[in-house]
């Protein structure tokens, strides 16, 4: 079993785990910004679990994020969908006989769903807490900043000097990305996904919440609630055992 950290498609940094002869290869799409940092350990745990059962994976970062090249303030969701398509091509190149699975977390999951619609050869799709609405994601981020500002005494979002971009937890959100995120609404989009699709809700609830239930019905997907802390929000390590168990079924 090999582990290889490398750049592909010029700008994208990825970590490959597995063998060329694998029958299943997964492209792992992270969230972005601070969420990517927090989710990294769990995504690596997922990659290791796949490797243990003989499946290969490519965990990459979208351009402008993680160790990938690019200016975060200048990228767009169109760029990131292209990055995901490039990651799929790289995974196919490395394991030519394998079936392709996409697994995404948060925005990474939303992008996986959008890209899977255009990719006939994706056979497995795993969406972990997909962002259903970019607009509500942005308002949650603003709330988060407000909370931190009040707790630490730092300048709040509305006190920041107006610039071309807004600050998203230290990540400069360019106008293009902002308007694309505001327009993102998975419930209003139509999808033709051929892959077996599984949606996972992660949090304290044992029942899948109505919005994710509605998405699962729209996609004819299964939906399951995993009781564990929202790992993409945490600085500390969270035990991913329950998620890994669910993924193995």
């Amino acid at each position, binding site marked *: 079993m090999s582990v290889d950290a490398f750049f592909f498609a010029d700008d994208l940094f990825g970590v490959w785990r597995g063998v060329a002869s694998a029958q299943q290869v997964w492209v792992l799409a992270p969230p972005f910004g601070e969420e990517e940092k927090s989710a990294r350990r769990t995504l690596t745990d997922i990659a290791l679990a796949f490797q243990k059962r003989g499946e290969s994976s490519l965990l990459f970062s979208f351009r402008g994020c993680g160790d990938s090249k690019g200016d975060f303030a200048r990228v767009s969701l169109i760029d990131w969908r292209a990055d995901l398509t490039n990651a799929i091509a790289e995974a196919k190149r490395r394991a030519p006989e394998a079936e392709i699975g996409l697994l995404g977390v948060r925005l990474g999951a939303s992008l996986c769903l959008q890209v899977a619609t255009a990719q006939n050869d994706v056979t497995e799709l795993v969406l972990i807490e997909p962002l259903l609405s970019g607009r509500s994601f942005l*308002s*949650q981020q*603003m*709330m*988060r900043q*407000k*909370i*931190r500002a*009040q*707790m*630490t005494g730092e300048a709040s979002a509305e006190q920041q000097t107006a610039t071309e971009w807004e600050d998203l937890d230290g990540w400069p959100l360019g106008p293009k990305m902002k308007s694309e995120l505001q327009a993102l609404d998975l419930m209003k989009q139509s999808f033709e996904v051929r892959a077996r699709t599984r949606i996972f809700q992660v*949090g*304290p*609830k044992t029942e899948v*919440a109505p919005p994710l239930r509605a998405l699962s019905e729209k996609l004819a997907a299964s939906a399951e609630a995993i009781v564990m*802390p*929202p790992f993409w*929000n*945490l*600085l500390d390590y969270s035990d991913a055992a329950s998620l890994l168990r669910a993924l193995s079924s």
Partner: protein
Amino acid sequence: MEDLKQRIKQMIVDHLFLAVTPSKIGDDEPLMENYGVDSVALFELVVGLEEDFGVSMEDRDFSVDTFRTVNTIAKFVEANS
């Protein structure tokens, strides 16, 4: 009001994955000091209020003081639900 406070305590335990029985949380116990509620945890409580009580907190409504104790949260929920 007592029922509301119990539900709030349950919400706190659930959303923060605390290893305590909800009834052990005192109505006036300082949540931030005693349960290590930081900005990340506080955000989870904001989400919990929305999910469990249908109380949506707008940016302009937000005050850390609302989350000091179970009693302060209960007052906010009562005033806004």
